[in-house]
């Protein structure tokens, strides 16, 4: 239906024009290049390019982490790429001393890390010294001598008495001096005779005592502390200065990014060369282009050289053409949903148009609130205007924008305005007259409506399958399989509705469904060899009706999701109303709850509405007729990390 016709081509040109032609093809995004190299003369991308890319990337990450501007919340989801003209980009990179900048960046990063480590180290030493500040002896003198051992450390204050007692018992000539006391701990200097060393050491290591080693120095703890304070101050100034120069270097950030993208482009060009075939003077590119683009491609190539040959060739035996979809602009966004399942195969058809109405309607039903819908539409339009989104994102947000409008309409019809009902709003009379159903009060009707939509879509799916069979001239299957099933399912629905309304037509419906069932029983086993097997498999095939029943019930989610958005919205309003009376902060609290609550509900509602509407298309609808399995058309084009060419 709307799959683009593809042509495999072979391009032969002179080796000297290669660079220019690659550039041209990359810019025009016109051809998907397949591998036509003989395989033995593989050129590999220079490893140095890869290293260089990695180096620039790490420098960019480092400089970005120093930038004081925080990304907006939205940007953390959609990293915005800078728009820049190619000439501008080249000019910026020209004469830019990339290596020097990288070196500088690396140096600064190292220096910063060293300083940070030093700072932590000094801080640690200071912390250890402070409790012993009162010791008025140079630190290097607090050391074991020939006859005595001196140890510094701390112990929990409540364990101190027991500890001293035990040590005194063990080594009578020992001495414990408390130097200072912090919250729960006492800092001690312990001295004992060297001859008691082994047993004292054993005792100390088993007790709750914790030894502390002071930094080595000839100064007293107090002097050392003063000294450390000076060093720390110096380190901090140094740190601040380095930060400043790092920030200055941050001005080169843009150029680094440009450089990265430029190198990336070169890498792609050299990567793609590996797929080329070659003779001594020429090179050969094979690939797929859209049939309609043939002349355009020739015209483009003429810009680079006149010495080329563009041949239409036959694909290899097992080669399948890549698939590109084309739809009228208004319906193109729905391709996103088809792509989610997977591209159709080349000789299948594109179901995007067929699902468009169902999807957008289901989305609206699931979100189903006037205000939420409008907010979603406005937000999507804003995003598309503000950020240069890739094609896929553009399509997705178009879908959401339209879906929001449908949701707003559904919201009016079901009387849901930010969770409020028309009765709670001004202009009640007008809004109530627009409301045709209240799903919260009357869920059964809404459920019936949801299931009816399901029946419609499932039968539609079967019709499509029937049409496909007719197209492939498989009339027997078309009539006996799809035709009979459609007939039987419709008659069953007819029967269910008629008996639910106790209509006199129920009898007729019953006869019709009996007829349908018998017809299926007689025909579904027709491919089996024996009469017995025909009968059994005909009977078993009727069991498929449970599958259709399950599919139909699956559409009940339309009701459940629509109601949940509305009711949660209403709950948020009730909660907000409850806190309104809080003295002082009541109104502020109410506004806070309203904003956060509704925002949350909106995000959750949109997510749920999208996922479940997609699911109904992919599982319940596509299951009836669609196969997929095609390769998406991916033309050779510029891929950049930070920039978009104007």
């Amino acid at each position, binding site marked *: 239906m709307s799959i683009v016709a593809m042509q495999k081509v072979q391009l032969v040109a002179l080796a000297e024009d290669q660079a220019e032609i690659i550039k041209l093809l990359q810019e025009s995004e016109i051809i998907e290049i397949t591998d036509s190299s003989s395989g033995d003369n593989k050129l590999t991308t220079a490893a140095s390019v890869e290293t260089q890319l990695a180096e620039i990337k790490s420098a960019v990450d480092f400089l970005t982490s120093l930038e004081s501007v925080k990304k907006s919340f939205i940007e953390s*989801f959609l990293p915005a790429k800078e728009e820049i003209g190619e000439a501008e980009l080249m000019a910026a990179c020209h004469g830019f001393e990339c290596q020097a900048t990288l070196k500088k960046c690396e140096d600064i990063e190292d220096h910063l890390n060293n300083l940070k480590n030093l700072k932590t180290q000094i801080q640690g030493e200071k912390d250890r010294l402070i409790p012993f500040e009162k010791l008025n002896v140079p630190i290097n003198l607090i050391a074991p001598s020939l006859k005595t051992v001196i140890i510094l450390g701390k112990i929990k204050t409540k364990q101190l008495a027991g500890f001293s007692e035990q040590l005194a018992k063990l080594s009578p000539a020992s001495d414990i001096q408390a130097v200072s006391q912090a919250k729960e701990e006492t800092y001690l200097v312990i001295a004992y005779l060297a001859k008691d060393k082994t047993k004292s050491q054993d005792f100390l290591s088993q007790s709750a005592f914790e030894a502390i080693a002071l930094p080595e120095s000839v100064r007293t703890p107090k002097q050392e502390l003063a000294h450390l304070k000076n060093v720390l101050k110096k380190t901090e100034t140094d740190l601040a200065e380095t930060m400043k120069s790092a920030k200055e270097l941050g001005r080169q950030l843009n150029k680094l990014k440009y450089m990265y993208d430029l190198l990336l482009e070169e890498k792609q060009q050299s990567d793609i060369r590996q797929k080329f075939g070659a003779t001594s003077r020429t090179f050969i590119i094979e690939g797929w282009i859209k049939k309609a683009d043939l002349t355009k491609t020739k015209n483009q190539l003429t810009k680079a050289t006149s010495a080329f040959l563009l041949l239409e060739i036959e694909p290899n035996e097992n080669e399948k053409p890549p698939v590109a979809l084309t739809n009228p602009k208004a319906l193109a966004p729905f391709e996103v949903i088809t792509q989610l399942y997977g591209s159709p195969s080349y000789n299948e058809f594109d179901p995007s148009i067929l699902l468009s109405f169902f999807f957008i309607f289901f989305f609206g039903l699931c979100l189903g609130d006037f205000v939420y819908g409008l907010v979603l539409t406005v937000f999507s339009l804003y995003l598309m205007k503000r950020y240069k989104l890739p094609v896929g994102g553009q399509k997705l947000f178009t879908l959401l924008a339209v879906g929001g409008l449908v949701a707003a309409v559904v919201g009016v019809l079901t009387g849901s305005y930010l969770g409020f009902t028309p009765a709670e709003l001004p202009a009640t009379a007008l809004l109530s007259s627009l409301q045709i159903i209240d799903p919260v009060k009357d869920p*059964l009707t809404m459920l019936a409506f949801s299931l009816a939509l399901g029946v419609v879509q499932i039968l539609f799916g079967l019709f499509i399958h029937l049409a496909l069979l007719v197209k492939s001239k498989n009339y027997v299957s078309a009539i006996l399989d799809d035709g009979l099933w459609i007939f039987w399912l419709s008659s069953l629905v007819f029967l269910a509705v008629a008996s639910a309304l106790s209509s006199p037509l129920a009898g007729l419906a019953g006869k019709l469904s009996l007829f349908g069932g018998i017809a299926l029983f007689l025909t579904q086993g027709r491919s089996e060899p024996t009469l017995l097997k025909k009968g059994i498999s005909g009977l078993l095939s009727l069991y498929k009706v449970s599958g259709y029943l399950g599919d139909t019930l699956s559409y*009940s*989610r339309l009701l459940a999701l629509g109601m949940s958005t509305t*009711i949660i919205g209403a*709950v948020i309003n009730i909660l907000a109303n409850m806190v309104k009376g809080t003295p002082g902060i009541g109104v502020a609290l109410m506004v806070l709850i309203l904003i956060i609550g509704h925002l949350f509900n909106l995000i*959750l509602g949109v997510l749920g509405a999208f*996922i*479940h509407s997609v699911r109904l298309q992919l599982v319940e609808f596509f299951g009836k007729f669609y196969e997929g399995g095609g390769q998406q058309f991916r033309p050779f084009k510029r891929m950049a990390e930070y920039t978009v060419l104007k």
Partner: protein
Amino acid sequence: MEIGLALALGGVAIAVLFAGMGSAWGIAIAGEAAAGVLTEDPEKFGKLLVMMALPGTQGFYGFLGGFYIMMKVGFLTGATSIGPMTGLQLLFAALPVGIVGCISGIFQGKAAAASIYLIAKRPDETGKAIIIPAMVETYAVLGLLATILMVTGVKI
């Protein structure tokens, strides 16, 4: 007649409690996987956040079911008194959303964690990765639906 109201509130508690636990558990499973992936690639936060939020819906369905029962008995607007049998009916009506919500929440969390690994390796396939856990959620939706229909049908 207070026992009737107590039973109905028991139903509210079951709906909110179990479905909420299931969601919390499921999000934790998905969150552990997401945190692991983020250590390698913090840029994926946006995508993974969506995956982590997926098992969160059960908690809302439970809350919704509970709230529906509260509205039914008029609990927030000055409770009407209801008979013990009516209360018991509402209690039973709460079971589908509570219990299915709990179990499907946990399992949706597992499916979401698996999808998170899929995104880690093939970020282009995020769309498909989102659909997989959503398949599990279907049954929570059905549970909610059953609860809502049952509550609607109860006569006060």
